[in-house]
């Protein structure tokens, strides 16, 4: 048994150091090299730019509160869409805190003019707190508010929303969805008068 222990020490130390260099340094550096050369946009965070100015990432949601913008889902990441503090609410199905939060949010969207059922994703927090998407239904229920704030007609905004809906890949992978940041940028770029 003692011989077994003694014989294990040198290979353990050597293999750890050797593999740490290979797997912990060389391998990520190789991927970094390939990634930065072949896919520089993705490798650096899929950033969205307005000229030279970075306005966000295509993959990461951001806070929208103004009436003229489509709103994303509530976020539990930091104080909301904190890109350095991803998190879900982790509230369980019988949590009073969860029910109270949703009740207050329902009241707020009702005051905004939403009638009928509230889409299931609109007032629930995402897993990451950084969800860039909402469901098409959640976008559609906001059309009236956005149109009014921008002085556009409902059908004008509707057309932009429908154009922004992404379909599941091959009809199987993923859900129909709308990227909120990209949709709002399209709205801003549509050149219509904004009053909000």
């Amino acid at each position, binding site marked *: 048994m003692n011989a077994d222990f003694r014989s294990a020490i040198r290979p353990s130390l050597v*293999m750890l150091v050797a593999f740490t260099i*290979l797997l912990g340094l060389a391998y990520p550096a190789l991927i970094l090299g390939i990634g930065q050369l072949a896919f520089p946009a993705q490798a650096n*965070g899929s950033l969205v730019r307005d000229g030279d100015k970075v306005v966000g990432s295509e993959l990461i949601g951001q806070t929208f509160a103004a009436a003229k913008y489509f709103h994303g889902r509530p976020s539990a990441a930091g104080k909301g869409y904190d890109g350095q503090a991803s998190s879900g609410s982790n*509230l369980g199905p019988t949590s009073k805190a969860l029910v109270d939060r949703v009740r207050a949010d329902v009241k707020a969207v009702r005051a905004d003019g939403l009638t009928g059922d509230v889409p299931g994703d609109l007032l629930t927090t995402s897993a990451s707190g950084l969800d860039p998407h909402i469901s098409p239904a959640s976008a559609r229920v906001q059309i009236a508010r956005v149109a009014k704030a921008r002085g556009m007609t409902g059908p004008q905004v509707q057309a932009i929303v429908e154009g922004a809906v992404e379909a599941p890949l091959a009809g199987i992978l993923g*859900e129909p969805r709308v990227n909120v940041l990209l949709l709002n940028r399209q709205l801003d770029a549509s050149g219509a008068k904004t009053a909000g």
Partner: protein
Amino acid sequence: MTFQGWLLIALFTACIIAITKPMGAWLFALYEGRRTPLHVVLGPVERGFYALGGIDPDEDMTWRRYAVHVLIFSFVGVLLTYAFMRLQNVLPLNPQAFPAVDPHLAMNTAVSFITNTDWQSYSGESTMSHLTQMAGLATHNFLSAATGIAVAFAVIRGFARRESKGLGNFWADMTRVTLYLLLPACIVYAVVLVAGGVPQTFAGTAVATTLEGAKQTLALGPVASQEAIKMLGTNGGGFFNANSAHPFENPSAWTNFLQMVSIFAIGAGLTWTFGKAVGNTRQGWAIFAAMLLLFLAGTTVAYWAESAGNPNLHALGLHAADGNMEGKEVRFGIAASALFATVTTDASCGAVNAMHDSFTALGGLVPLFNMQLGEIIIGGVGSGLYGFLIYAVLAVFVAGLMVGRSPEYVGKKIESREVKLAVLAIAVLPLITLGFTGIAAIVPAGLAGLNNKGPHGYSEILYAFSSAVGNNGSAFAGLTASTPFYDGLLAVAMWFGRFFVIIPVLAIAGSLAAKRVVPESSGSFPTTGPLWVGLLIGIILILGGLTFLPSLALGPIADQLAMVHGQLF
């Protein structure tokens, strides 16, 4: 539940069935130590590592020697990883200038990554430097996975060899798996992930000015290289706190699908390797079938429960047909979230693409129960197979008792020593899970970390210890575990959960390897047909059920009843 959702589950299942044989055949070549096309490039690396370490790859190790080398290698690995975290403030590649990690957290994390658990009491993006993530943590995503597969190889040899003292060479098994499977597969996989939107940079952050004029700082880093091995090696330790729910770790529905397949790929392949090694691939397929049926059952329950949603929110006006979207991402939706949760806890992966803590009570019961069964439904790489074989030994024993014959499995007589060791492995783990849960549920330090009250709070504790002992690493993440109390207790649970299976199972293999092969006769219980598959499933569910049902009744089942009746906490 939607047709599209079932289509996704069917497509996933088909991919796993299709991948099992080719993956198994590749693993078999490594098991045998055969030359592969990759040897041209990596053969010199392999030989160089042996030369530096003074390793003779042809030395045949007894089960004791094999186990001791696994233990020492793992223990030294803990020390090195601990050092990386404690010294990260003075080491390079720390663009966000993070301080050294607290001792109790560093100890917990080191044990966590070496045991292939990847339980995380920390948020990666605000705690760990790039060097710690890459060299300290991701290195052990490879090595703990390779160690698991190596032990599985040794255990397979126990069944396959006859009148032999040895189980093979740990260093050769571990090195070959790393060099000829994990590393090349991850290089391709990581590049594909970068193409799909997963960042790979040494920059710390990117700063954006949002459309509304606020400043948004986005944490970045070498994510793709870590993501690939995190899934393929069933590690599950995310670069970010939100793990595979974070859009930078898992940007789209197709990366999500790829991640789910890669969790099961090696574990499924090993069932075929086992069958091939014992001379009858139908033996492997029987194990695979039992695993697959348990997986489909879990997926169905989780998908149903999450689709049904939370009546307490529907009562407020949320659209009931949308299911439970709290803690889920829109791009994945209900089906891919329920499927991922089942897959990641069937295997001991522990990556999450949705917050299990916010699942409905029954939806959360599925991942919890999966872990409690011992991570044997496909299971962790290597650990799934050797854990499952413990159940197989018990199943032939029970079958033998029923028909009054001495039990045999793949030509080996199962005798008192093997059954005792199997029972030891299966009894100790629930004792730790339930014992530690009991302690944490009554002491103030245990109750201090809860995010939810009532039965769901208890479920958070039970989930944490089930996850640690099962070396899974997923969490009901509301629990604040970065305290000395939880860090310490969970580290003990993870260490025992790993090595209290590895040591007994290697001992079983050692004793089996020494035996002669009994020729199959008309009196042998066939271990390939549907009867055997049914018996295996029965044994797994009865043992797991008897052990854990009382604890589940106090947690998720009470929670479900409360949810249906509108009782809030």
